[in-house]
């Protein structure tokens, strides 16, 4: 998805730059033409000319293409309904909260209410250490 959107944005920018350049060249040409005309004939001529249709169309299309590329490159929208969001956390875990590069977004903390069950302020560190020592023993026993 990122490849397509980046390519589209680049292509659109190129098109837009081309349209700008064409418009600039066109106006330069018009001024030159008017200058030469005023030199040869004394009749004053209006130099107000409209841009050719192809340049206008190119500009519009280029803008649309850039827009499409930018829109495609946005992050996937997050759920705005509580239950959908909560369900996503439970069902997908951190897999459901990645940006376009496949990395977990920084703000993801899982279920924010988990701390009421873990209670980090009341952690019983000695029990945890004992549990860890037992885990080490049991996993060492499983390996043998």
């Amino acid at each position: 998805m990122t490849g397509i959107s980046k390519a589209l944005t680049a292509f659109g920018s190129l098109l837009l730059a081309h349209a700008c350049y064409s418009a600039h060249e066109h106006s330069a040409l018009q001024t030159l033409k008017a200058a030469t005309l005023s030199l040869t004939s004394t009749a004053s001529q209006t130099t107000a000319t409209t841009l050719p249709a192809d340049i206008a169309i190119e500009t519009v299309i280029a803008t649309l293409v850039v827009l499409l590329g930018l829109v495609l490159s946005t992050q996937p929208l997050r759920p705005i309904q509580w239950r959908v969001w909560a369900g996503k956390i439970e069902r997908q875990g951190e897999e459901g909260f990645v940006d376009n590069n496949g990395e977990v977004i920084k703000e993801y903390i899982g279920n924010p209410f988990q701390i009421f069950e873990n209670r980090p302020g009341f952690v019983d560190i000695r029990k945890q250490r004992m549990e860890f020592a037992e885990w080490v023993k049991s996993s060492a026993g499983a390996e043998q």
Partner: protein
Amino acid sequence: MSPSLLLHPPGQLSPAAAYYISRQAPAVLQGSPSTVSSSPLSALFSEKESPELWLKYENMLLSCLRTENDQAAHLFLERLVTRFGDDNERIMAFKGLLKEAVARQNGDQVRILNEYDQILSENDTNIPITKRRISLLRSMGRVSDAASSLVQLLEFSPTDAEAWSELSDIYLSQGLYAQAIYAVEEVLVLAPNAWNIHARLGEMQYMAANATGASSGSYQKYMAEALKRFARSIELCDDYLRGYYGLKLVTNKLLQDSNKSNKQVDDDEFALPDVGTIERLNELSTAKLSEIVRHSTAQDRGWRGYDPVEVAAARELLSSDAAAIER
């Protein structure tokens, strides 16, 4: 494993994950700045200070302590102390935690407890230290002291949901279901959208209903409440495995009861829904649980967030259910 693992509170990690984090300690110590200068000139050239850095240090400290990597834990604490100072309440609690972790005999613990009392006599609104003192009391087996200190703490800080939750856990460990349920309800008042706490309350009510000595009136009341709590947790969270598991457990039990006797206690507030509704709820939870178990066993994309232990428990419940139907 992702780097965001370091930003999670480490309580919910498995021993393997804690060990993995603890082994990263040297890399983190080397890769992050030991001090962050507050002068604007040096801030131009060095890495910017972010809250995540200190959160990471705290979590590393806890994981290192848990995995008995005391040396690294001391280094992390040192950095936190140089940043926040010795008299920061949170840092004081971490220092106490470190001392608790290396305490070997009972005498050491009593000495630490006296130190906490000393700190609290100077400033009795130091909540992190109060919490440490309570958990130390609990860890030493003085559960009733812990409970009464906790009640005191809640008296002057009644909006502390974590403390209410700890109180309910203490009461539950003593088999005092009514008090435990009251404390969890207080947590729900403070965090009404916490789907896991709704499920927890449902579990406690189910336990209270099936505890020995529960009268038939309170049995029905607790079962009806448990049903409601599990239903609410599912309402707050789509595909919540724990909620559906509880719902299935409760409805199974209620359907068994309705087969045996049709005695209903007339109580408007805690009336159970009729049997048809309960049957439909049971069917729904069976369908959802089997869907979750199927997807999660197949490791389908978008279904990998469940805890494998919970999925295994759900599978067991479903298979025991199927066996009961065949018989």
